[in-house]
Structure formats: C-alpha cells, structure tokens
C-alpha cells in the first residue's frame, strides 16, 4: 500500500502548526464544578434557610443522613462521568463515575425504601406541592454546575453527547437535591422518595434537552 496520500495528509497537518492550549485536568475541572455547586448551594440556603435539625439529619446513615450521602455520591459520580466522556482516553474514569453514581443512588433509594417500610402508616406531613418544590430546587441549584460541565465539554471532544448531558443533568440535580434536603425539614419517607431521591431522574428528564442544545451551540461557536 502506497503511503503517499497519507504522507501528503501528514505534511498538510504539520505545516504551519499552531500551538494549542491543553484543556485543564479533569481533577481541576471537577473541583471547579463542585465548587460552583457549593457557591450556588450556599446562596440558596442563605435565601431559603437551613433546616433546624441539619446536624441530626446528617448523622443518621439509615435515615436522612444516608440519603444525603447517597445523593452526594450520585452527584459527584454523575458529574465526573460527564466530564470524562468528553476527554478521549478517560473511559475508565467515566465508568468509575457511573459506578459511583449508581451506588450512591441505589444507597439513597435503599434508605428511602427502608424508611418507607418503617412508616407506621401512609399518612405524610407533605403533599405533592412540597415534592414539586424540592424537585424544582434540585433542578435550579443543579443548573449552573451542569452548564459548567457543558461548557468544558464543548471545548473538549464530545463523542457521546446524549450520555454526557444525561450524566451531567442527573449528577447536577442530585447535588441540587442535597441542597434541597439541607433546606427541607420533612422526614416522611414518601416525600424523601418523591421529592429528593427522585431528583436525579427528574433532572435528567428536564435538563438534558436544554443542555444538549447548549452543547451543540457551544461546539458550533
């Protein structure tokens, strides 16, 4: 096989080669996105207030504390997976992110199911409007971190845009749900399941399409 066409291509690619600025490390970008979430969450909690029993809630691994931890893991895992999907050669990091997100979500769902089974009756202290409120807070707080992921990815190299935006949306909404739970004092299992633990799924449904549009426009520009 003649190498001439390939060599011509190589000559074309190497002529007038412009230097490029490598993208930041994944670790730094992930840290930046999580820092962004912390800032948004802090502002949100300043405006909405923090639940009075936050410390007690955090210290219950098989109660709200477990849901906090599970959602936090799901959030970090989802965002890391989304970032890694836009960098060639980082598939193992993306897989690790998906595993962390899955384990975190499964743990949170397990705790919620456990709490639900422990409830003496089906009466709850909240209704569907409270569920919607917490889901809305999750998506709103998660929006900026998700956009941060998209902006980085647009500069990098996206191979699976749909998987990327779904992971970013779900992960960001999970971190948003951590914020919602830091504000929402309700401990009834039904609300925890529908208003908090369900947030990553709802976030994926609500935010994925706008993020996909934003990603495509950012790449074009």
């Amino acid at each position, binding site marked *: 096989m003649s190498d001439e066409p390939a060599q011509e*291509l190589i000559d074309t690619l*190497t002529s007038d080669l412009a*230097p490029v600025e490598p*993208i930041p490390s994944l670790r730094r970008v992930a840290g930046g996105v999580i820092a962004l979430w912390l800032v948004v969450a802090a502002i949100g909690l300043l405006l909405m207030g923090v639940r009075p029993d936050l410390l007690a809630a955090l210290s219950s691994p098989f109660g709200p504390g477990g849901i906090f931890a599970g959602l936090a893991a799901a959030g970090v895992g989802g965002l890391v997976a989304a970032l890694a999907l836009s960098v*060639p050669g980082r598939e193992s990091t993306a897989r690790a992110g998906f595993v962390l997100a899955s384990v975190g979500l499964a743990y949170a769902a397990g705790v919620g199911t456990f709490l639900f089974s422990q409830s003496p009756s089906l009466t709850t202290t909240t209704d569907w409007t409270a569920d919607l409120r917490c889901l809305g807070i999750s998506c709103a707080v998660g929006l900026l971190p998700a956009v941060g992921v998209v902006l980085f990815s647009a500069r990098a190299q996206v191979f699976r845009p749909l998987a990327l935006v779904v992971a970013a949306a779900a992960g960001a909404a999970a971190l948003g749900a951590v914020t919602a739970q830091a504000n929402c004092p309700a401990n009834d299992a039904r609300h925890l399941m529908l208003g908090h633990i369900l947030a990553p799924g709802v976030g994926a449904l609500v935010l994925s399409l706008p993020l996909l549009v934003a990603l495509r426009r950012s790449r074009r520009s």
Partner: protein
Amino acid sequence: MSCVAVSPGLGCAIDAQTRMAYLVPGVRRREPMAEPTTQEERAERWRSWMAAAQRGDGEAYGRLLTELLPFVRGEVRRRLGDDAAVEDVSQEVLIRIHTARHTYRAERPLLPWVRTITRNAVIDQARRRTRALNRSSDVAPDAIAVDPPDLPGSDRLSPALERALDALPAAQREAVWLLKVEGLTVNEAAERVGISGGALKLRAHRGYRGLRDLLGREML
C-alpha cells in the same frame, strides 16, 4: 505447556492433552523475561512528541503522526475488518487527532487517547455505512447509477478520459465522477457515498492522480 528445571540440563514438559509430565534433557527452566523496553520507549517518545506538537513543533508532530499511522491502521483493521475502508478511516483518525490535540494532557499516556479517537472514528464509519445502505435500499434499482457512461454528462467526455476513468478503482472513479461530472459539492457527494467529506476528498485526490498518470499531465 510449562517447563520446570529438575536438575541442571534436565527439565520436564507437560503434555497438554494427557497432562503427563515427561523428563526432557537439555531443557532449562525459563526465567521470567525482562519486560521489554521498546514499547515503553516508544510510548515515552510519542508522549514527548505530542507535548512538543502542542507547543507548535511541526517537526515533532510530523514524526509522531508518521509513527502513529501504522499503529492506527492496525487498530482500524482490527475493528473494521473491511480493507477497502481502512486507509480512509485511518486518515480520518489522523485528522481527528489533529483537531483534538488540545484534549491531550502530557502527563497522561498517549495510546489510550489515540485508541479512543480511533474507536469512535470506526463507529462513525460503521454508522455512515449503515445509513448509506438504508438509503440505497429505498431507491429503485434502476435509479442507482452504476455505469458512469449512462449518467447525464457522460457524452461530454473524450473516449480517452472515459477509458482512464474506467481504469480507476471503483471508489476513486465514483468520487471523481460525482465531483467533476455530476458537479456535486463535497458534502453532497460524501452523503451519497456514505463517507465523510475528508474521506471523499482523499478518494478524489487519488483518482485525479491516477488520471494524471494514465492520461499525462497535459490532459488535465
């Protein structure tokens, strides 16, 4: 089969089928071989050339792409199996490496980065082929132009040019025909054939060179 030293100059071999061990004179125990450094040296060399290329060193970049090309071809051939498309996809990979070179970080190994780009180029090629097959199956058989002289515009070609076109490989002839006789744009022609625009340009480029060789430079 494993071989173990029983005493100096005497070893044993294990029959794979019967699992019986036999004493074999002159067989020495195999010492574990030292890890070859060639691959490590190559990986380090490529890594440093890529870092230099990011700084704008065209010479290092040229050496890197030249050495990467056989590796990329091997990866593409292993995944694609279709020899006709290996060269096109391999060159597409080089183009993608070029456009994505800012996503490589010098502290990371280069080969996983290259493999991901290669894998995705192969996946895209398979998708394009599937789309082209689906499109062609929707078109009536007699509408598919197979023989270039039957297409409009062919009566403007000289017999010598027609003979030269017929002598080209089918893929190159098709590319030249679509661009120069039918007058399609690169994107239109690429979509019809089911390959990327870059791959189509490469096929046409080879076709023009082939015609030049067949007809002599003064004909073009």
